[in-house]
């Protein structure tokens, strides 16, 4: 059942006007050259407007808006090239805290997230544990009222600009899934080091090192040894199209359409490439809308979220290749510094797209979730 919702128009206009006033060409150029898609001032401005936690209920400082407004926001952010990547990870952490935090933590942390003064990088992945995230070995050992953390995380994206890192730590050995605990740790705590990792897509990420990092027990989110169950809820939220959904994929279709409209004629194979790309984008958008619709109805989109994530990311990779096929040799040319130069888009997209099939749960993880939960096939891996 479909319908056109027009009430979103004024919100869209507001968001568009805001980004157009605050996202400058200089800002975008700096993000591209550093690979850090974040701007402190822009983020604070968003906080002033309550646009960071816009889907949170008003009782905790949000605007009480729905997943469709979140989609509109993501579309406009993408259109403007606004560097707001940290919003997604911060909200994930915030949602985990909403579900598992103490009353003191709710009162202390949530207002800062809403205001844009607390930002968080995710510290789950380790050099030896990627998809098998529960195999984390970074240790947290109790020491009176404190915990002492030692270990290494990898792909701690935006840790160099975030105020906090959300660390998944081993607090008990011998029980893989029942020996993990989560901590929200200020990045300025002594003993934390950040080393950059540069990526194929141009985005910077990090390795982060923790040497005898002392944190008070008040940084612990959820029960001791209960980190896995706390985190799983947040993972479902991440895949549930909390932010971007199919926006990037739809932008590729828009780009290809604009290109095609500029051609005097298209060959049969170009028509087929374009048709596949358009249809993929529409299907991705519908899978994303289905997830949002479930969230609006207070349903947890486990299988549907995985389908959306799997389809959209795999399609983005396919579409990035198809776009290069369409554009021909000119497509591989890199941007020449001039923002209005359409060249560079396809080249950059091709380098970037592949990470979307890996980050936030690989395609293999999504397929296993779909197989086990959507088709009741037997499990193919550990718990």
């Amino acid at each position: 059942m479909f319908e056109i919702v027009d009430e979103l128009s004024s919100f869209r206009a507001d968001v568009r006007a805001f980004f157009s006033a605050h996202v400058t060409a200089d800002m975008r150029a700096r993000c591209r050259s550093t690979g850090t898609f974040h701007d402190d001032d822009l983020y604070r401005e968003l906080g002033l407007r309550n646009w960071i936690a816009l889907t949170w209920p008003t009782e905790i400082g949000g605007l009480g808006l729905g997943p469709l407004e979140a989609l509109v926001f993501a579309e406009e952010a993408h259109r403007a090239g606004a560097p707001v990547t940290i919003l997604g990870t911060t909200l994930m952490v915030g949602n985990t805290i909403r579900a598992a935090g103490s009353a003191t933590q709710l009162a202390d942390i949530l207002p800062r997230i809403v205001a844009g003064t607390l930002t968080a990088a995710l510290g789950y992945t380790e050099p030896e544990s990627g998809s098998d995230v529960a195999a984390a070995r970074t240790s947290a050992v109790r020491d009176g009222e404190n915990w002492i953390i030692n270990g290494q995380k990898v792909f701690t994206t935006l840790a160099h600009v975030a105020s906090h890192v959300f660390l998944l730590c081993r607090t008990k050995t011998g029980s893989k899934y029942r020996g993990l605990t989560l901590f929200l740790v200020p990045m300025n705590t002594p003993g934390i080091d950040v080393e950059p990792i540069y990526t194929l897509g141009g985005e910077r990420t990090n390795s982060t090192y923790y040497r005898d990092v002392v944190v008070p027990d008040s940084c612990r989110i959820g029960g001791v040894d209960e980190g896995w169950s706390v985190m799983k809820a947040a993972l479902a939220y991440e895949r549930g199209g909390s932010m971007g959904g199919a926006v990037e994929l739809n932008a590729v279709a828009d780009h290809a359409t604009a290109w095609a409209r500029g051609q005097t004629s298209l060959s049969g194979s170009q028509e087929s490439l374009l048709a596949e790309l358009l249809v993929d984008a529409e299907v991705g958008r519908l899978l994303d809308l289905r997830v949002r619709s479930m969230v609006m109805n207070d349903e947890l989109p486990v299988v549907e979220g995985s389908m959306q994530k799997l389809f959209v990311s795999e399609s983005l990779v396919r579409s990035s290749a198809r776009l290069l096929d369409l554009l021909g040799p000119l497509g591989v040319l890199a941007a020449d510094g001039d923002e209005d130069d359409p060249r560079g888009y396809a080249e950059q997209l091709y380098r970037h797209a592949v990470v979307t099939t890996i980050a936030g749960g690989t395609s293999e993880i999504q397929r296993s979730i779909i197989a086990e939960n959507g088709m009741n096939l037997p499990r193919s891996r550990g718990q």
Partner: protein
Amino acid sequence: MGCLTVTGFVTSDEQDALAHSVRRLLETRSPLQRVRDLEPLGFDGDLHEEFSRSGLYDIRSFEASDGVRGKLADCLVVAVECGRALAPIPYADVVTGRQLTSQLGGTVSSRDDGLTTFAPISSQRKGDAVLVANGAVKSHAFVLLDGHLCRIAPASRRQAANLGHLPFSWVNQSEFVSVPEIAPEAQRALSDTWMVLFSGQLVGLARRALELAILYASTRKQFDSLIGSFQGVAHPMADGLTEIEGTELLVSEAAWAVDSSDPSARWLPMAALSRSIRLAERVTGISLHVHGGYGFTTEYDIQLYYRRGKGWPAAYVEPAALHSFLVAEFLAEPGQRLGGADR
């Protein structure tokens, strides 16, 4: 700058009830053994009669004078069930044929005089002979010949044996009766009906094929394990289910666009058909493969789906031509873009 959204991707209670009753009817009247018994012709006159009597072709009734009543989305529910069951009736062709009949002012009776069908596709020619869908059963089959609407009179004709066991036949051009031209917009409406319903048949076919594979993967053991526990088996199936659900959404959206005269109705039915064609091939391929060697035997039902998953769409549609129309339509309208921003 509105936003296309969904109020829930569930069908209405009425649609659920309709799907349920059609599924029951097909389980009783058209089990797969009967589908096999009716090969190679692929047409079940009794089932056609039953559908006719039950009004399943006329859910969306047409009157030349006051336009369309009822919803394409409801017919879609029936089409999906026909696909699931591999029902040997050309559901999309008949509904479209009846719509055409009403546009022509009912000059051909759809109820008393047998089968009236129309698949608004360009006909294949070989010399003076034209390949006609449903030409192998006594039917008033309409065809588009070089862009002109024609009709054959009911007669006994030999089937042109084919992959999908469809009742296609070669018909000599001299047997065609010309009929009054219809307006381009009316022709377009026929096209939309047919594309959405045929897509529905393919989606239903694909979903049932995958269900057969799930059953098999949940019972068959190799290396002391259920084969569904192997990622090499399970993951292509997960891709298949994802494609099925994505395509279902797209086909439903196309039906909605037609029912509500949304501007996206210019291209969504073509998008739905394009994706359903690919879906049926892919998912029946995955599902047969899951069955291993048994899937290749005539004894197992999955081969019935594999054959039709390609044989049905390939008999009607050339994907490259469809893509060409789709792209032309999408690009022709300057405001036409995917939903979401700027709608």
